[in-house]
């Protein structure tokens, strides 16, 4: 399978990229590990690819105040190995090891995964659990979008045509558990859980259980009572659709299993 023909541009600056993205049917190319397969399979056939790979300022992992800022060119492999990530937001480094395989992690990017918004992907759930902020830029300037209003649905986000997700900011600190059930190493998750707690506040973000990552607020509230009560309450948070291999009921069961494992890791009872 070969991609249909398209034009290609590699701008040196974001301003240049915004200009190119004005043309009809242009797409942003960063790591390309989801976009290029969809081109090869002709699920997508844009007229123009704007490769942001040459914009050096987007290749950054920085501690800014109380947050870690991860730029649009940072790969899963960088997330996995960066000392700043391991120290301040270890959940992201843990999640990276579950994503596909080493050769793909060397190219795919964290921000690209957020912008794609695959409901079975790891980072969108991490962003939700960590209460991240998405930094979006376009011709009109920069806007900061809280994660709660970024994911709109299946492969749908708050990103508008002509805009680029230039970075994501993750509050540092707290402690986290990242768990995932998949049929084989590197497969998409059947069910996954990104759990984070900070100052007594617990955030449980499940993935692979809906059209976007889902924050299980009822279960989090009941976690203070008992693991069993939290598992019971999870039915108020999740109503997973079946996938090719699992019924919705099985997925809810698996989500409860992960919930119990996560809470047990924190010695909750």
């Amino acid at each position, binding site marked *: 399978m*070969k991609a249909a023909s398209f034009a290609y541009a590699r701008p040196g600056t974001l301003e240049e990229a915004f200009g190119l993205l004005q043309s009809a049917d242009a797409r942003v190319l960063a790591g390309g590990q989801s976009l290029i397969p969809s081109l090869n399979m002709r699920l997508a056939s844009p007229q123009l690819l704007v490769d942001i790979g040459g914009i050096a300022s987007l290749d950054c992992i920085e501690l800014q105040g109380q947050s870690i800022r991860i730029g649009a060119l940072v790969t899963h492999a960088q997330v996995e190995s960066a000392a700043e990530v391991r120290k301040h937001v270890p959940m992201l480094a843990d999640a990276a090891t579950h994503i596909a395989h080493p050769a793909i992690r060397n190219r795919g990017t964290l921000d690209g995964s957020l912008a794609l918004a695959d409901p079975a992907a790891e980072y969108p759930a991490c962003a939700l659990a960590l209460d991240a902020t998405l930094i979006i830029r376009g011709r009109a300037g920069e806007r900061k979008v809280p994660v709660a209003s970024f994911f709109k649905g299946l492969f749908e986000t708050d990103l508008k045509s002509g805009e680029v997700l230039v970075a994501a900011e993750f509050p540092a600190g707290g402690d986290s558990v990242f768990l995932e059930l998949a049929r084989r190493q590197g497969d998409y998750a059947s069910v996954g859980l990104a759990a984070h707690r900070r100052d007594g506040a617990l955030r449980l973000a499940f993935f692979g259980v809906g059209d976007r990552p889902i924050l299980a607020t009822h279960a989090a509230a009941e976690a203070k009572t008992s693991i069993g009560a939290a598992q019971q309450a999870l039915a108020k948070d999740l109503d997973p659709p079946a996938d090719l291999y699992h019924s919705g009921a099985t997925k809810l069961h698996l989500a409860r299993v992960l919930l119990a494992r996560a809470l047990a890791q924190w010695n909750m009872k």
Partner: protein
Amino acid sequence: MEHEVDTTLTVNGVEVRRRISARQHLVDFLRDELGLTGSHAGCEHGVCGACTVRVDGEIIRGCLMLAVQASGRRVETIEGLSDSGELAALQRAFHARNALQCGFCTPGMLLAARDLQLKNPQAGREEIRAHLSGNYCRCTGYQAIVDAIEDVLHGKG
């Protein structure tokens, strides 16, 4: 807007200049334009790993990188790594352990195995399996491949 891009890259130590169609992925460029047919195009959507090559020292999927994205980069293929002797111990072990039948997956397997050898030379069987999880073999059932890599990592190769 350009559908073809003048591109300069280094392939197995040799500088290559070509006008490359933007839609052509790296493994097709290596095979069809340069005649380096050791890297194989299998699934062409990033699942099978037969197209694995090294770019700037890191393994990547040759079908998931456009050839134009390799501009200014250093590409190494099974041909270069085989000629340099870098893979010799792994190749001997694959031979000794019958770690291939048809051989279609073998160049990708060798590159992934070499990557593991460089990054985690003490890897055990489970880590070998995890590192090779993105490389499919439809003949051997993997046992012999893991055996071969284990031999090399643990000095039996």
